[in-house]
């Protein structure tokens, strides 16, 4: 495994390990990276409005996890030499607006937004897991592990949202 602080480099000539289907992995990572980036901006928007409210700490915690997810995908993008989506500036604004907009509707609005977003993210991760398992579970072991972990995190966010939505 890479030394602490050293960037994750899977292979010389900047290519992923031989045999990895570059097109499939590229699509998956690009979409996931964009998704995590968007999720980050949504939580940022929610925090901007509800940061000082009672649900502030809850949102902050979920946001921190999303930051970790994004960091991981940044590393994977570089390691697999995947092009990021050109729509990032758009997701930057759209995500923030969605988060802030839903938060302006109140805590319930923010939580409802979280529930909806996390629901669709976990479905999305699930279908990616299916794709990779169909391709070759051994070859994509590392990637599968990461996506499964993230899918579980997102489900947790979803459940947290339900919890707080129900309470509020």
């Amino acid at each position, binding site marked *: 495994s890479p030394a602490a602080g050293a*960037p994750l480099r899977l292979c*010389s*000539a*900047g*290519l992923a390990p*031989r045999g990895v289907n*570059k097109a499939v992995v590229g699509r998956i990572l690009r979409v996931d*990276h964009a998704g995590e980036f968007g999720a980050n901006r949504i939580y940022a928007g929610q925090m901007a409005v509800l940061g000082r409210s009672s649900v502030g700490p809850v949102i902050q915690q979920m946001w921190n996890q999303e930051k970790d997810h994004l960091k991981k*995908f*940044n590393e994977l*993008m*570089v390691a697999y*030499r995947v*092009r*990021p989506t*050109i729509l*990032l*500036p758009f997701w930057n604004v759209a995500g923030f607006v969605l988060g802030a907009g839903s938060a302006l509707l109140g805590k319930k609005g923010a939580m409802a937004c979280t529930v909806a977003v996390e629901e669709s993210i976990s479905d999305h991760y699930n279908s990616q897991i299916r794709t990779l398992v169909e391709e070759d579970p051994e070859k994509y072991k590392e990637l599968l592990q990461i996506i499964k972990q993230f899918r579980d995190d997102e489900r947790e966010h979803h459940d947290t949202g339900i919890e707080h939505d129900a309470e509020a």
Partner: protein
Amino acid sequence: VRWQLSPPQRPLQASAVLRRVSDEQKKEPLASSSQHQFDSQPADHQHDQEPQDPHSSYTGQDGQESEDYESEEQLQQRILTAALEFVPEHGWTAEAIAEGAKTLGLSVAAAGMFQSDGSQLILHFVSQCNTKLSELLEQEQKRVQLGEAEKKPTDQFLRDAVEARLRMVIPYIEKWPQAVSILLLPHNIPSSLSLLTSMIDDIWHYAGDQSTDINWYTRRAVLTGIYNTTELVMMQDSSPDFEDTWRFLENRVADAMKMGDTANQVQSTGEALVQGLMGAAVTVSNAETSRAER
């Protein structure tokens, strides 16, 4: 003849060598001159991005091709590589390909396998150069990792990489304008663009670019611009060893570096401006409120 000039072969190649020898016995003796112009093997096809194993041209890219059968694609690669020697004289044409085929002991009719406008020959050449560049950059990176060489600052790295790549065109510089115009034909644009973008991506990758935001695009766009303009300058340059071209390149790269700083400065100024305006708005609104209360 060719094998002697290459570094020692790996055991996998033994059967390929035997097949080659039996081929040689069947055909006329090969001319050696066409082969040692290039150290690297026929370059990779555009579709497959794996680094070309320099010794694997006769056993296929992953060694799985049966060793007594040379695919049509491999044969085409060999002919095109052989044809390059004749480009300075005949241009990127079917004549050059025919001459190349002759040196391999094949009939000139073999040139009929290729498109008549020379596109395939040019694309083959570009692909081969890109592969060579990747190998060079890879080796340099290894040397830096082993501590045998200093890590270059970004601007110098980019300059050196672009220069190294452009120098590969020098032996064909007379006929290069013809090649560029053929590469710009609509039916060639997908291939030539793809080769260009992957080469630029390679350079940035080895330069250490790890951006995953919009910078990924701006950096590549800027470097592509630098590469293309420098190539154009080179085609009109008659200074000794193209020193005018390299100076042009140096200036363009320096401009690009400065642009990065300027963008940051513009952003900071913009942010400061916004804060100033917000402060002014709050002050005015407070003043209004307090006046209204009086």
